[in-house]
């Protein structure tokens, strides 16, 4: 992307910003279904923040869960191959 360094408040190419923001909207599960109604930019930004925080919290909870499983289930060998297949199919 050209002109990144000149992206200041007064010289913003609004269309460019809007394009990037709509791209964000497509990634948000709560907002990307509503393609007909207009969602404001600030709402998309707010939803992005809360979506990221939600994912971070999930990472934290999953880490705890995996550690607990490791403690109780005595996992010494993890089958990489079967997990790869699970992720691909």
């Amino acid at each position, binding site marked *: 992307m050209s002109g990144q360094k000149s992206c200041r408040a007064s010289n913003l190419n609004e269309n460019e910003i809007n394009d990037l923001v709509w791209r964000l909207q497509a990634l948000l599960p709560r907002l990307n279904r509503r393609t007909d109604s207009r969602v404001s930019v600030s709402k998309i930004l707010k939803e992005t923040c809360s979506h990221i925080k939600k994912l971070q919290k999930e990472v934290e909870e999953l880490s*705890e869960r995996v550690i607990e499983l490791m403690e109780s289930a005595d996992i010494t060998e993890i089958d990489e191959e079967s997990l790869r297949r699970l992720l691909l199919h």
Partner: protein
Amino acid sequence: MILDLCSSSRAHTPNMTPIIPTANNPASATKLRFARRFLRSLSKMSKTRPSCPSSICVKKRSEGLKMAAYWCMARSVGSRRAWSRAILMKLSRGRQQHPHHHNFSMKRKIRRPTWLGKTKKKQKKKRNITCSSSSYDDEDEEEIMKRQTEKLREVVPGGKLMDICSLLEETAHFVTCLADQVHVMQTIAHRYS
């Protein structure tokens, strides 16, 4: 989502389109790289069991695993993204300060940035830091946008140094990778529960 993956029959042909619940398919290579790295970290951690399986130990180890997850994802993306570079820089500084610990479980003195998630003990709610003299009722769209952008800068690694265009681009990629990371961890947790 996880049940769909796990119950899908192994009779699927290898050429079948992978079911990845993220917006971009090209992220799947990164996702696999992350899965491989993360599993290696997990193997290492499972071999080093604490002497006392107390709840404090569990919390410390899960904190270490969380950091390892972010590290593995940042390594899988490499240096081509500002957010991954920020994570790698931040976490490698921690490793330098604690050279004896090859894993992240014993980090105590490192200040954890907001974008690595907050630990449950120290939940500092930053309220009204960017509050201007006017009340929220009088804020116009621009003020709201400014505030939301600042919040976004706090949650995206390296966000504080980016211009708005880069911030939005990096955020999109970061969200995709974070979703991949969660998906892999969910698959692992489900596989071993």
